[in-house]
């Protein structure tokens, strides 16, 4: 057993390695977030964190719960497929508490043109006009009722919704 006579220096080395391993394990436990590796090589808690963000757009179902008169108007025209917030903007705050925030009054001359200004890249079947020639600068809602845009003689005045244009 002559060769194991000087085993002491090996023991010392083993102690140093053991301390290093323990320190590594302890530090790793402290530094790596608890949910890391829950689903994969990332922090699992990031998923609910991302999902916790508040919404800005309420969704048309929320609008339709109260504004049934507008829904009825829209059903009669082509704009039935256009969601309320496409024109009226993000209104989740209004949907939560209608008194806290009112939708802004819209400028139809700008708003309608966003979709209906003529452009050769638009699908040919889509109704488009060169607004300068079409209305001569008049606001679109002089003739068209935005919720039910097709001009039907005698129905324009009655086509206005109860909540429309109110501040």
């Amino acid at each position, binding site marked *: 057993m002559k060769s194991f006579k000087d085993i002491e220096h090996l023991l010392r080395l083993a102690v140093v390695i053991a301390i290093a391993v323990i320190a590594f394990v302890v530090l790793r436990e402290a530094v790596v977030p608890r949910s890391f590796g829950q689903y994969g090589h*990332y922090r699992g808690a990031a998923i609910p964190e991302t999902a*916790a963000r508040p919404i800005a757009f309420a969704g048309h179902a929320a609008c339709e719960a109260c504004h049934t008169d507008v829904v009825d108007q829209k059903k009669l025209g082509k704009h039935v497929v256009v969601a309320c917030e496409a024109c009226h903007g993000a209104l989740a705050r209004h949907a939560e508490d209608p008194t806290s925030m009112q939708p802004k009054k819209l400028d139809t001359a700008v708003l309608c043109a966003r979709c209906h200004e003529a452009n050769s890249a638009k699908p040919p079947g889509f109704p488009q006009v060169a607004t300068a020639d079409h209305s001569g600068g008049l606001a679109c809602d002089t003739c068209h009722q935005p919720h039910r845009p097709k001009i039907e003689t005698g129905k324009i005045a009655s086509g206005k919704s109860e909540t429309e244009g109110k501040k």
Partner: protein
Amino acid sequence: MDITRRRLLMLLPAAAVAWKYVLAGTPEASPNYKLTEHWWSMLIDIPKCIGCGSCVRACAEENDVPEGNYRTWIERYHVADWKIERPQVESPDGGKYGFPPQVGDGGKNFFVPKLCNHCADSPCTQVCPVGATFVTPDGVVLVDKNYCLGCRYCVQACPYGCRFINPKTNTAEKCSLCYHRITKGLTTACCEVCPTGARQLADLKNPKDPIHEFLRTHTVQVLKPHMATGAKVFYNGMDGSVR
């Protein structure tokens, strides 16, 4: 490896930052939402897109996207009859405020809305050195902004140019497929406001989703299929010139 005093001092701040997350705990997840029951994708019907920019504006408002950066944007293609291999593509302000009238010399013109393709085998998540970006079990590619270093590897890796560095937070940012909305049963902000239905959120794991009928009856394509990224944004009616 030896823990010297110097090394320990270097590790302590990192440990302190991590401890903050441990203390914060896991936030409350949306009730009744099961990660394994969904596999999100999007359908884009190019012949329906009118380039109005509603999606770009809604996305910016819903997700606080800084001006000049886009999580989704619209490109206008002009493909001349005699130069089909070199289409002219423009996207002024990402199409946020619409497009100027086209001065075309024939050929074909069309709009292509773009966004993160939420690839199943995404190159961006593979290059992240810290695991700050990942594909969720329900198929959405997300960025953990509390963990991102801002090293920009993922920005370079995305073959679709869908990522950018948020100048305020200096972390990578991209379309989250409105993860905070779809987990609550709402559609994404862009799909909500799209006036023509050119964009449709789809859940491939939901057998009742109309996407299945659409995929059966239409010829759809993804962007850059040769990259084999497993892109999940399906384009209907896409011209071969689209890059």
